[in-house]
């Protein structure tokens, strides 16, 4: 294993030494899940009655549901009664300056190219020491406000814009959609809310400047994005910095509601702690992400780069209800060591002349397993629907696995579905060609892998793409040769 892999693992495992500590007073309720707990969560957040009722309804449904049966995932049973479902945002032990932070951690930040101010926050330097980024945040909030864009935490939205939350919450992902969505609906902690008014193009990538603050929203995150007619927004979730979390189970829900000609671009970089090299202790990441293209020519585009978590289970989906609406899914999923990823997308064509594109790039190294599972469904009324899917798998070494399961359901014969799939090993010939020209083995791997992922990187906002590229390099270090 290379030095930097060790570094990554070391600091993701280190307990409290450099400020990952949580020995500060916390506002928590006892572990376990019951109706009582759901009520307590809602009360602590001072929620209106309709929301409490909504949570209780979800809880009642969850109790009747069964945990999904893991086809390709090898998973230790989760004990839902051992989880603490509410804890006020944990405060890290604050440092006075970056000089006090773990030098290894700082080195990683530097390699990832994370801006200096953000490094401070991520390393746990007291926030009031980071005047720049705070003032930047306020400036942007003001600018968004002038355009009528609402972008705030979910809890804030419940208090400030209850009518909007009430109208759209659960409109894309119903409470009983799946086991984890039901669980999230009952106990969600916080998350983000975003509303783009009619005709407004959001002038900046949302969350570029806010992602640090959003990093601590807990294990049951809820995001709701509503885009009115003719609006546009590019939303970034996650962070390339390695995220450590004591919460083993993460079950987030993301809902996107796009109206006529609205275009929502949602980009994720996920780098949760994947567990140690023996596969112990990583985060289980079970996410429900769905977008509804509800109007004529609505368009939703998902782009994701997944490198973290012990287990990832995630299918960002699009329901193409409006005529001529467009759904897109661009994904890179990297697994190393004992990681398992089961990801893919669902494109549900309901409207006429709807179009979807799926580009999935899996990279498996070590003893990991990487599964693509995709559903393309063309409904009865979806005349002339089109789908193009390309699912490629790249294997590094011969102890890892890649699996592709494309499911296709066609109820309208005018539909056209094209599927291409390839599995390749990182080519010895390509490696030799690059090293013959003087590139080191590591540089050659990075070059080839980046080339392989190019189509997806192209979809990411520029600065995010650069970070994601470096993240990929770090994730795969020491995996060949």
């Amino acid at each position, binding site marked *: 294993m290379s030095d930097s892999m060790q570094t990554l693992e070391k600091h993701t495992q280190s307990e409290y030494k450099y400020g990952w500590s949580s020995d500060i007073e916390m506002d928590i309720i006892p572990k376990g899940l019951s109706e009582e707990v759901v009520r307590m969560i809602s009360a602590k957040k001072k929620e209106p009655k309709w929301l409490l009722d909504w949570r209780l309804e979800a809880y009642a449904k969850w109790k009747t549901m069964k945990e999904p049966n893991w086809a390709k995932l090898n998973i230790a049973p989760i004990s839902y009664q051992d989880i603490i479902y509410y804890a006020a945002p944990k405060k890290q032990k604050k440092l006075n300056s970056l000089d006090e932070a773990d030098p290894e951690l700082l080195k990683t930040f530097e390699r990832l190219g994370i801006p200096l101010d953000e490094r401070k926050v991520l390393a746990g330097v007291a926030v009031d020491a980071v005047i720049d980024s705070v003032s930047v945040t306020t400036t942007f909030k003001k600018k968004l406000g002038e355009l009528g864009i609402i972008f705030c935490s979910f809890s804030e939205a419940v208090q400030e814009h209850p009518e909007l939350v009430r109208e759209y919450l659960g409109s894309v992902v119903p409470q009983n959609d799946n086991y984890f969505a039901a669980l999230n609906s009952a106990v969600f902690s916080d998350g983000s809310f975003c509303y783009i008014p009619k005709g407004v193009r959001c002038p900046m990538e949302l969350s570029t400047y806010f992602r640090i603050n959003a990093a601590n929203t807990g294990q049951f995150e809820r995001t709701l994005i509503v885009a009115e007619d003719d609006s546009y927004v590019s939303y970034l979730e996650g962070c390339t910095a390695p995220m450590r979390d004591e919460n083993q189970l993460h079950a987030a829900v993301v809902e996107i509601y796009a109206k006529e000609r609205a275009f929502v671009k949602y980009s994720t970089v996920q780098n949760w702690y994947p567990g140690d090299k023996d596969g112990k202790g990583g985060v289980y990441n079970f996410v429900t992400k769905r977008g509804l293209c509800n109007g004529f020519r609505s368009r939703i585009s998902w782009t994701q780069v997944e490198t973290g978590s012990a287990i990832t289970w995630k299918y960002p989906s699009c329901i193409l209800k409006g005529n001529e609406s467009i759904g897109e899914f661009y994904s890179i999923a990297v697994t190393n060591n004992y990681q398992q990823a089961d990801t893919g997308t669902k494109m549900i064509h309901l409207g006429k002349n709807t179009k979807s594109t799926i580009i999935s790039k899996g990279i498996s190294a070590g003893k990991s397993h990487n599964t693509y599972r995709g559903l393309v469904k063309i409904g009865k009324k979806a005349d002339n629907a089109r789908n193009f899917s390309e699912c490629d798998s790249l294997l590094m070494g011969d102890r890892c696995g890649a699996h592709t399961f494309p499911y296709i359901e066609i109820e309208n014969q005018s539909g056209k579905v094209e599927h291409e799939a390839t599995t390749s090993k990182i*080519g010895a010939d390509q490696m*030799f060609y690059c090293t*013959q*020209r*003087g590139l080191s083995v590591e540089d050659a791997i990075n070059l*080839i892998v980046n080339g392989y992922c190019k189509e997806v990187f192209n979809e990411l906002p520029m600065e995010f793409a650069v970070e994601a590229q470096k993240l990929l390099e770090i994730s795969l270090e020491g995996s060949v040769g």
Partner: protein
Amino acid sequence: MLKIKDLRVSVEDTEILKGVNLEIKPGEVHAIMGPNGSGKSTLGFVLAGKDDYEVTSGSVEYQGQDLLDLSPDERARDGVFLGFQYPVEIPGVSNSNFLKMIINSIRKSRGQEELDALAMLKLLKEKLASLGMDTNMLKRSLNDGFSGGEKKRNEILQMAVLDPKLAILDETDSGLDIDALKVVSDGVNSMRSPDRSFLIITHYQRLLNYIVPDFVHVLVDGKIVKSGDKSLALELEDKGYDWVKKESSEVMA
């Protein structure tokens, strides 16, 4: 520059090179000819350090050091360049990005400063023009969908920018039209210098009219069976390989 002594090489337990001896001095151009499957590309790969080839005996000395001891990238940085018979495609990696990376990695190893974007572009444009290549070639994915001739020119472009000490060109002339052949040969000739050597693998005497070699060797069944000057190539063209094969078996007998 290069001293190959009794080199024996196997692939998957089949012996392919069966005792090759060859010495190349600085500034010399050597041509290797020989029938299909005789081991010409194998020799190129072994000198460049490809994995699958097992050296069972013999030695290769390059600039006074044991070449076989070095990894492929170390050899490249020490000035060994192999122009591939079948250049490899790398989708998604732009040609310009690749050229930038290899140029800077070689420069760095020589203790030279990395070229900035402007200087890089200038260098690439200049070399492209001298090889009659369109600047569009820079934007395309490396060798991906290149025509046979485009790939070969791209190999010469890489050789030109990397400024090697020993250039091994494996059938760089195959697949080139007459004009391209002229351009590529001019490229090679302009790089001839007292401290750079070439090992040129070819099937066609024609190329050797443009790039006039100091020596011509004939490789048959893993052995150099005949060496001579450029007139040997003409003789081969005339009489075919059977002639040398026969002659060499008579010598052996």
